[in-house]
């Protein structure tokens, strides 16, 4: 396989609603930003140089358009080139990066556009006169329609089942430990101008916010967002030919799907997909599951719900099982902690624009490794490595992990 680098990153602001843009216009904006970033990074390319596109778009009902990728393909001026759409729930972004990596690593393309977009808040619930219940309903159709949707299953109740089961087994995460994640990620977003939910809040604020799905409260949950994020991936040969100044190499990709029926799982309180995806990605990058915390500089995690981030600390190998709650209490994942997690603000701070999210978090991690993240730059980039993490689908069945390294990391 060929070596693959991220040479350009483009992320639009994450917003509650764009009244002035459609989904394909948002995708255009992110693509243009990624091309401009590649130009700034030394690569003299335009959209005409891109040989293929991987589209990460989760939900047709958000976009009010089935096969939305082909309409984006037209708007991006990508006609007469291959374009493939990936849809893997909340993990769509991470999975799309994995497939774009495969497109380039295999040699099918030397330059590939990896783009995610989602525009959910055109959904509208007439009974309440608000968007969210209808957004949630359009997501709920991703639950098993025969046995589980009719029970009123939705994203939060699905995730909370795993968190509650984890708590029963390990006594962790507590509600206060979950709240600490919310405080951290809303706080990190204060320094990210593209984030939808920057907030300076306390554990008490989270604990006092209204209950959504026991024990998740409003501030434990990410907000659904509208945005697009794009990466430009290149082979090593192209990196050299284009004289890219600061390529960020993708050195590990891992993905796994656990059983989408939570009731079929041996341990309801664990996401084995996270564990398998992480182990595959770390091994590919020559890193070790048990030592990963000291081998990377930061992690952009999939914190759709605060409790899930705590469990991810354990499943991704940062701390032993049962140790996630104590680790957030000790400040381990804070910006100045042992391993900063979600310096961008994550989904809780930035918002969740589903298909764009995992591409945003991968792009954010790449910018961190370039020391180009702006006000939310992690101070110490010494290993030259980072990971991004995406999960989603019914019971968070899908998981994808991407390992990235800068030139210094590659020499280690």
């Amino acid at each position, binding site marked *: 396989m060929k070596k693959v680098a991220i040479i350009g990153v483009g992320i639009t602001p994450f917003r509650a609603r764009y009244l002035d843009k459609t989904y394909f216009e948002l995708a255009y904006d992110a693509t243009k930003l990624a091309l401009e970033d590649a130009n700034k990074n030394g690569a003299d390319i335009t959209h005409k140089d891109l040989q293929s596109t991987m589209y990460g778009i989760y939900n047709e009902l958000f976009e009010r358009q089935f096969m939305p990728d082909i309409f984006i393909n037209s708007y991006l001026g990508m006609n007469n080139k291959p374009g493939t759409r990936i849809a893997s729930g909340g993990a769509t972004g991470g999975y799309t990066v994995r497939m774009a990596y495969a497109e380039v690593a295999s040699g099918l393309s030397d330059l590939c556009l990896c783009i995610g977009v989602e525009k959910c808040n055109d959904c509208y619930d007439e009974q309440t006169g608000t968007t969210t219940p209808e957004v949630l309903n359009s997501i709920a159709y991703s639950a098993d329609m025969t046995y*589980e949707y009719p*029970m009123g299953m939705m994203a939060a109740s699905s995730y909370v089942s795993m968190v509650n*089961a984890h708590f029963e087994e390990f006594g962790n995460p507590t509600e206060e430990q979950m709240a600490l994640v919310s405080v951290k990620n809303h706080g990190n977003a204060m320094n990210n101008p593209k984030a939808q939910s920057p907030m300076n809040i306390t554990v008490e604020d989270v604990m006092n916010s209204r209950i959504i799905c026991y024990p998740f409260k409003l501030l434990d949950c990410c907000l659904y967002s509208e945005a697009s994020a794009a990466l430009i991936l290149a082979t090593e040969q192209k990196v050299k030919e284009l004289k890219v100044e600061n390529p960020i190499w993708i050195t590990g990709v891992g993905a796994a799907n656990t059983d989408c029926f939570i*009731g079929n799982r041996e341990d309801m309180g664990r996401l084995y997909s996270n564990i398998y995806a992480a182990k595959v990605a770390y091994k590919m990058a020559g890193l070790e599951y048990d030592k990963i915390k000291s081998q990377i500089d930061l992690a952009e995690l999939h914190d759709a719900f605060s409790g899930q981030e705590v469990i991810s600390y354990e499943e991704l190998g940062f701390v032993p099982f049962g140790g996630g709650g104590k680790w957030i209490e000790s400040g381990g994942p804070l910006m100045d902690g042992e391993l900063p997690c979600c310096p961008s603000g994550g989904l809780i701070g930035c918002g969740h624009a589903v298909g764009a999210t995992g591409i945003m978090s991968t792009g954010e991690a790449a910018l961190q490794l370039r020391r180009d993240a702006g006000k939310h730059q992690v101070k110490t980039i010494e290993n030259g490595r980072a990971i991004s993490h995406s999960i989603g689908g019914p019971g968070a069945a899908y998981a994808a992990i991407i390992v990235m390294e800068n030139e210094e990391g590659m020499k280690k």
Partner: protein
Amino acid sequence: MSNEFQAHQIRDIIKINYKYTMGSQSKFFLELMNNKKILGTKCSKCGKIWMPPRINCSDCYVSAEWIEVKQTGIIEVSTIVWFTTSAFIKNIPYATGYIKLDGADTALLQGIFSENLVPSKIKKGKRVRAVFQKEREGKMTDFFFVPEDEYENWLNKPDYEGGD
């Protein structure tokens, strides 16, 4: 003409009608509707009892046979929902949980009804029993679970009845 941006929004809806076949799982829904029975399937090789049922064992790649499972079981995990989708918002608060029926190897997502809907009443390990709608349509909403100590009370309500 003003250059100021003005958004134009339209009302729209995507609606599709179905006459959806439950395929081989039809038996589960017919037995539920007609006889108030809850069926699982048992793998002919490993003996695993699947709930929800599947007529092929995904572990062994051999057929699984229909069996009736008990209508009592334990809550594996549960939650109470206070904010939800447009389709269910009229039902809040409601509880759902994964119930392992006695004898089954996997757990089924179902509604848990209680006259006192608080987390402690429906936590892991609590025993529950199935209650059926008198008017059944061959859908998962034909039944739900209640805490065992509330079972008799639920049978006294006009819309519901017991199973076996």
